[in-house]
């Protein structure tokens, strides 16, 4: 008896541990309304990870509510870092929002678990009274589609181009690189040892650590792919993969690159203190640069990402999704459509400094205006051109562990813990194990 009591006390004192992944069974979240917008007052919940500079601004929401007076929007601001966890908790606990901003890299995992409402059914293939296929690029339409139906509507896109310190390029007589050899040469010319300790400490090329997205751009540019065409096996343990890995590592080996991992914090730190003079990233970084390094206005420019075999990029960005158990899917769809009108899409650029995803917004002259921050350049068309040839990540259920395996593989090479070929072989074995399992 004494032992039983003791066990009970121990278990009770530890019980909290096991509650960390509990919730109810989700349910239907209150049931959907009947087809067609209901005149009954409805409150929809919108969760958004954009932060302060969100295009889902108070004014925009007020305008939506004025146009649809029976709908009230409960807007919940979040941040990218915690959004995924919060969204998962809410959807699985039956407290689902009606609309959520979704990183496109999360789509494979969530879609394969049946988290998203079928937007093909909800929309009838029409967005703001025109076919969805006419309003997005082919790559975007593919990225929004999972198993023959739409699971999200792309709100902003992410395709990589080269950001570089134009003032330093001019001062040092460096030409803008267009291929890998030129990029290597430019990086070596750009980097500086300002304290005379024999190691470069300024204007280096950013080599990102545990991040599948960054390295995969190089894989893409080397003509490689992550998985085979039928998504059944790893394809990056290849000549292209080895070339991409060795090339990425070469920036650290010759001292022209600076390693930037999780421990280093946000890369904007390195941009502000000028350790980073060149990096590959998406259009959303235009806004981050302006906010994070306003004193460097006029010093940066953007160029198409240099490549080895194939120009282009993997495609990321943000989608607007409606969870399968959203309480008011029809009203949520009205909100999604409203946010994808050209005037709201422009807000993605003007408010958030990111890139709108619809063709109508992309064609807007506002996006091609010279930008003072970028020395009078209009950087946006460079990203738009890249988007036209970008492809999305493989849509497989096991994407999360694959993403982790590739990120770890890249990190181990960049930190010198593994040789490139060894890491690729191990990484491919892990990915194949996941795909087989």
């Amino acid at each position, binding site marked *: 008896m004494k032992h039983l009591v*003791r*066990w009970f006390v*121990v*278990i009770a*004192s*530890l*019980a*909290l*541990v*096991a*509650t*960390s*992944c*509990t*919730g109810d*069974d*989700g349910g239907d979240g209150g049931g959907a309304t009947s087809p067609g917008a209901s005149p009954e007052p409805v409150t929809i919940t919108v969760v958004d990870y954009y932060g302060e500079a969100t295009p889902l601004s108070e004014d925009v929401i007020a305008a939506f509510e004025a146009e649809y007076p029976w709908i009230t929007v409960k807007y919940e601001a979040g941040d990218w870092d915690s959004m*995924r*966890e919060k969204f*998962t908790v809410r*959807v*699985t*606990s039956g407290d689902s929002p009606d609309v959520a901003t979704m990183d496109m890299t999360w789509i494979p*995992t*969530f879609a394969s*678990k*049946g*988290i998203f409402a079928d937007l093909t059914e909800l929309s009838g293939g029409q967005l703001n009274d025109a076919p969805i296929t006419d309003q997005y690029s082919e790559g975007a339409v593919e990225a929004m589609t999972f198993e023959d139906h739409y699971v999200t509507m792309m709100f902003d896109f992410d395709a990589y181009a080269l950001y570089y310190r134009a003032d330093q390029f001019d001062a040092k007589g460096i030409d803008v690189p267009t291929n890998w050899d030129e990029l290597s040469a430019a990086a070596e010319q750009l980097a500086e040892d300002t304290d005379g300790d024999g190691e470069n400490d300024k204007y280096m090329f950013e080599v990102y*650590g*545990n991040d599948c997205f960054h390295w995969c751009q190089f894989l893409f540019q080397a003509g490689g792919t992550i998985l085979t065409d039928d998504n059944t096996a790893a394809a990056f343990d290849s000549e292209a993969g080895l070339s991409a890995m060795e090339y990425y590592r070469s920036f650290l080996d010759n001292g022209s690159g600076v*390693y930037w*991992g*999780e*421990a*280093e*914090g946000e890369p904007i730190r390195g941009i502000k*203190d000028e350790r980073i003079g060149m990096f590959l990233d998406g259009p959303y970084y235009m806004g981050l640069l302006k906010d994070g390094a306003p004193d460097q206005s006029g010093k940066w420019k953007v160029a198409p990402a240099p490549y080895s075999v194939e120009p282009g990029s993997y495609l990321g960005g943000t989608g607007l999704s409606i969870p*399968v*158990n959203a309480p008011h899917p029809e009203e949520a769809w009205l909100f999604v459509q409203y946010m994808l009108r050209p005037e709201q899409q422009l807000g993605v650029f003007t408010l958030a400094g990111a890139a709108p995803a619809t063709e109508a917004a992309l064609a807007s002259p506002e996006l091609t205006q010279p930008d003072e921050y970028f020395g009078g350049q209009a950087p946006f068309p460079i990203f738009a051109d890249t988007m036209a040839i970008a492809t999305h990540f493989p849509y497989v259920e096991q994407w*999360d*562990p694959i993403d*982790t395996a590739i990120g*770890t593989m890249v*990190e*181990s090479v960049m*930190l010198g*813990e593994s040789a490139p070929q060894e890491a690729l072989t191990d990484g491919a074995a*892990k990915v194949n194990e996941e795909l087989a*399992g």
Partner: protein
Amino acid sequence: MKGRWRRYLTGYALIAPALLAAGLFLYVPIALSGFWSLTDYSGLGSPEWVGLANYVELFGDDLFVKALRNTFVFVLLGMGIGPVLGFLSALLLNSTVRFRGFFRAAYFIPVMTSLIVVATIWKILLQDDGLVNQVLGLFGLPGHAWLSDPSTALPAVVVTSIWQGFGFETVVFLAALQGIPRELYDAAKVDGASYWQQVRHITLPAMRPTIMFVYIIGIIGSFQVYDQIFVMTGGGPINSTRTLVFDLIDRFQALNLGEASAVAYVLLAILAILSYVQIFVFERER
């Protein structure tokens, strides 16, 4: 008989709200989580029974095994150093030290500070151009990428956790120290016992329940480490700081609620066994 019933009824009525709350929000979720750990479940739809497959999957998964190993290293380092430091600080503060109140408050301030804030401060301190490397530079020592090096990242996080938590241990030990009758020390002094003999033969035995409390609470907390790792390293580099709770949340975010629940139950089992062993050992010695 009637009076006894009334007495029981009053007792049950008084504990009913707490029992109900614990039942609804603790034991029911625990039971559900246990059930899910035996299923393939995404959080939506119906769980599909898979028996012990999630547990088999976990122990065959390199990431989970690494997380398990990292967690044990974290606990061993943290609990090997933290309480000892706390105990020594308490001994110091219990003696006649000037500004004792100041030191007591100073030691406790990190405990009251948000763990996220503490982790952020240490992350900045430990960066390439951080204060730690600058101080090392003053002595002609080379700097180090503490959080980017897989061999030093976990120890660096342990140091942060010890710094944040040892003030709590100090205060608890200090309270226990002050409860030991002075007469025992006076008698020991008369018998010629040295300071360390007094510590060994009077202080430590008298503080055994407090030591047990500190270790049980500390070990439970250490096994649940997450916040400081999320802020400082994100589980990297190369998963060198990935811990069990980190692994659990990763699986939860991937909507593998079955596997996530299995991780929670592995954690629960480890803590239950360790706590039982601790209680057993301390009680046997008593």
